[in-house]
């Protein structure tokens, strides 16, 4: 048995809380993360929770990261093991030299510990039971008591935690003082009975700046408010429900007419996803900005309507908060696995615009922008989030808005325009050569501009026609429109390695923070990589040039079948050999370590194997 020195680190470690779902630990754990933020030290927390309500294990991981790495790191430096059910697995996941924090009320056999870790026992149940009689209080305050003990162990400033509790229970004095009391119970016990602080410590810093701490779903919902969405129809599904719930609460605060108190929005919980997207399409057809939020199974149900939106050219926005599929898959685990399903959703030849925000700030911006895009392109826009961004708090730049910004409603012909002499209105006429026709809202003009919207083939004047040439003409215009979209959607962002390199990496969405960190890890292994973060489909022409400029390009994604890579190969006619898939799909968020290892190993391999000359 090797003697392992305890891990010693200031402001750079991972604490994982293992709890039982329904034990009320979530708010104490979140308080822990926020307290560290108040020390000026960035954190990156993640919920790992089961798809049931009560009883099953749940974990909350807080990465304390002075360097600001917001992706998951992997590994655990300190385990707060509050769930007997997962004890063995939890103990096994601790890094050598790491710490195990547990409730020592009942003695544990030594076989339940590891020799290479540091065990810290606090008799939490005993302390709680001697203070509280009510069983619910016992359960809830136990969480605050362990938070107090952690404060002492990690040398955190209790004032900052108290301040947060004060903000949380503002106006509820009784709750406030009982929580502060519990905090000190734990802290005092630790100070008196344990060696405090341990090797892991939180020291005040100034690395948080003006950044905000917000969940992607809430930010996207706020983007919908700012982007002018007035109709939201949705059907509950994890991990997207909180988008609609956040939209509702944002609207309640921000969208009532000050004089009448009436709502400047309409939110309907549909009977299913078919109805939800139907409502969205009906509202958008009639000139309102509308959206739904869903996840994979919902997308499957919506595909018939998505095809209608594409073919009949009706704007709509779907926020897809991806989870692990197929079928019900792992409903509470994250993946980026609906790329192909969304890009080509529905039968026949279809293509849809996808946006891939990397964090809540971009989710806000892209959500707002998606309504302009939908109106301008008169088509479905998919905002592709995933559980990792959607349901976790993420540190990100403050949300920004330009008050001068007007909504771009796209090509809408008004009654005055219809009355202009010589004006010809054909719903599907390509007047400007960009593939985007003009539309009119119902009720615009007594005699001009009305048309029949249908999913069946029609001519440029919206008249039903099954003539081959007419159909093909329309389908070609839709391709033209999709090409136009290339220059309207957010462009990819590119960053070059410190030294010239033959290798590149493409990634997108929630992989971004792990990728940023992985680049550093790879550099320390001697691998230089240029990188490109794709932010939308259709792909901008710079994607093809980036691939052409490199011998090999790694495509990092969180799904089994390399879906983004497939899309790039398919849409840009690229030799698949040039794109090396780096795939992570066990439902946990991708980590910098994983990326660096996978790419690093491949790169090392390239050095020893005679390289096949890549033909570009």
């Amino acid at each position, binding site marked *: 048995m090797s003697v392992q020195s305890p891990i010693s680190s200031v402001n750079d470690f991972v604490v994982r809380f293992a709890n039982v779902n329904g034990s009320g630990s979530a708010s104490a754990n979140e308080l822990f993360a926020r307290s560290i933020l108040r020390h000026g030290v960035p954190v990156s927390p993640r919920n790992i929770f089961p798809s049931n309500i009560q009883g099953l294990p749940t974990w909350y991981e807080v990465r304390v990261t002075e360097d600001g790495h917001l992706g998951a790191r992997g590994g655990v430096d300190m385990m707060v093991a509050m769930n007997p059910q997962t004890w063995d697995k939890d103990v096994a996941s601790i890094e050598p030299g790491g710490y195990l924090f547990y409730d020592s009320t009942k003695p544990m056999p030594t076989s339940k510990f590891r020799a290479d870790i540091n065990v810290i026992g606090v008799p939490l149940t005993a302390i709680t039971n001697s203070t509280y009689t009510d069983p619910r209080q016992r359960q809830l305050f136990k969480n605050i008591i362990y938070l107090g003990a952690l404060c002492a162990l990690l040398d955190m400033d209790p004032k900052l935690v108290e301040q947060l509790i004060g903000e949380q229970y503002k106006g509820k004095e009784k709750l406030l003082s009982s929580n502060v009391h519990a905090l000190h119970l734990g802290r005092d016990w630790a100070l008196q009975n344990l060696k405090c602080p341990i090797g892991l410590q939180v020291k005040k810093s100034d690395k948080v700046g003006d950044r905000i701490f917000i969940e992607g779903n809430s930010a996207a919902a706020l983007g919908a408010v700012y982007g002018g969405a007035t109709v939201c129809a949705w059907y509950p599904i994890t991990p997207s429900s909180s988008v609609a719930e956040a939209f509702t609460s944002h609207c309640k605060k921000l969208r009532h007419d000050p004089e009448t108190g009436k709502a400047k929005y309409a939110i309907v919980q549909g*009977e299913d996803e078919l109805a939800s997207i139907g409502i969205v399409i009906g509202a958008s057809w009639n000139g309102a900005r509308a959206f739904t939020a869903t996840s994979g199974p919902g997308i499957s149900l919506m595909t018939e309507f998505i095809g209608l939106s594409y073919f009949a050219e009706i704007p709509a926005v779907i926020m897809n908060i991806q989870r692990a599929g197929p079928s019900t898959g792992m409903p509470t685990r994250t993946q980026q696995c609906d790329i192909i399903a969304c890009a080509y959703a529905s039968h026949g030849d279809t293509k849809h615009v996808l946006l891939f925000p990397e964090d809540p700030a971009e989710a806000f911006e892209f959500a707002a922008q998606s309504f302009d895009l939908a109106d301008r392109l008169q088509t479905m826009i998919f905002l592709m989030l995933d559980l990792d961004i959607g349901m976790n708090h993420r540190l990100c730049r403050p949300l920004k808005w330009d008050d001068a910004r*007007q909504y771009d409603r796209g090509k809408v012909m008004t009654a005055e325009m219809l009355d202009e002499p010589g004006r010809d209105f054909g719903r599907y006429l390509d007047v400007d050569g960009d593939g985007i026709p003009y539309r009119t809202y119902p009720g615009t003009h007594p005699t001009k501009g*009305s048309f029949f919207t249908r999913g069946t083939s029609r001519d440029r004047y919206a008249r039903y026609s099954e003539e081959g040439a007419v159909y093909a003409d329309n389908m070609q215009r839709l391709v033209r429109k999709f090409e136009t979209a290339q220059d309207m959607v957010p462009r990819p962002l590119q960053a070059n390695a410190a030294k010239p390199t033959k290798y590149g990496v493409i990634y997108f969405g929630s992989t971004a923070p792990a990728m940023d960190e992985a680049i550093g890890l790879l550099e320390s292994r001697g691998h230089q990589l240029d990188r490109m973060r794709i932010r939308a489909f259709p792909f901008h022409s710079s994607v093809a040039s980036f691939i052409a400029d490199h011998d090999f390009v790694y495509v990092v994604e969180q799904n089994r079948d390399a879906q983004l890579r497939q899309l790039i190969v398919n849409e840009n006619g690229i030799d698949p050999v040039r794109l090396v898939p780096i795939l992570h799909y066990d439902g946990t968020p991708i980590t910098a370590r994983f990326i660096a290892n996978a790419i690093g190993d491949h790169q090392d391999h390239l050095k020893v194997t005679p390289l096949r000359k890549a033909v570009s």
Partner: protein
Amino acid sequence: MTYIAKPKFHHPGLPKNELGYTHRDYEGKISTLCAGCGHDSITASIIEACYELSIEPHRVAKISGIGCSSKTPDYFLGNSHGFNSVHGRMPSVLTGANLANRDLIYLGVSGDGDSASIGFGQFAHSIRRAVNMTYIVENNGVYGLTKGQFSATADRGSKSKKGVMNTDNAIDLVAIALQLGASFVARSFSGDKSQLVPLIAAAIRHKGASFIDVISPCIAFNNHAGSTKSFDYVREHNDAVNRLDVLTGRDPITVDYAPGTVQMVEQHDGTRLALRKIDADYDANDRLAAMTFLQKHAAKGQVVTGLLYVDPDSEDLHTHLDTVETPLNTLEARDLCPGTAALEKINASLR
């Protein structure tokens, strides 16, 4: 050529309604349905009702699903926007459209296959949400467009054209609409224009979910002996509960009515319906009685037509959601966007 425009010629002598529109202004394209299809008669009744109500044709949004019946919106109100959506999902599209602009009139046209099978859920939920609309089912007991399969409204024991006996129970959409809280429920027959026109007009005037089930024989697949949706069958088994006229609020009338003969129905928008009751005991304001009445006659194999139920105090989805009076689709950034000051506050609360 699959599309036939109607000639635009307007006879100068055509009678005009209050707004100066003639019948022609309420017509659409020439029907491509089978000559004699019941659906075309319903089209004619819709045209008539809109003409009589002096509706501005372009202020109507006509929305349908898929099926022969769902094609009909193309054949009336040529100056209004139409939407032939997907099979069975007209109600959700209409609901969304209605949310976007509460000021238009929403006509939903559907078939029995469309509404009682694939779209049964959407039918039910649009009714229970009290969407302000006139929901017309052109009910022929078969799938017309896909050539004659039974629909879910086909009566048990009825025979298909090919001689197959239907062994499934029928769904009575009127009974369901009553149960779900529709505030206007009626049934009529495509061939009975004098009954259907005022019913449609009253439904349009009604605020809330109006549902009219119109028996509309499919002459191609469901007009044979053995069908319970054929012309002959319906004529023989029709039991009309009442006759009604619609009088707009602009021309109020006083009716000298004796209890048991005429019943006035005050509509939410101020218009009044005069019901000429055939059945002296029938009270169209009593939902429970309507349900019993319907079931009693159904047990006797009778088709009850007429206005079965109307709620004079009805509300609609916009009332329930407490939305602003201004149509949502006209709100601009200045009305909707909370601006940077609000965003700064939100940012501050997230630190």
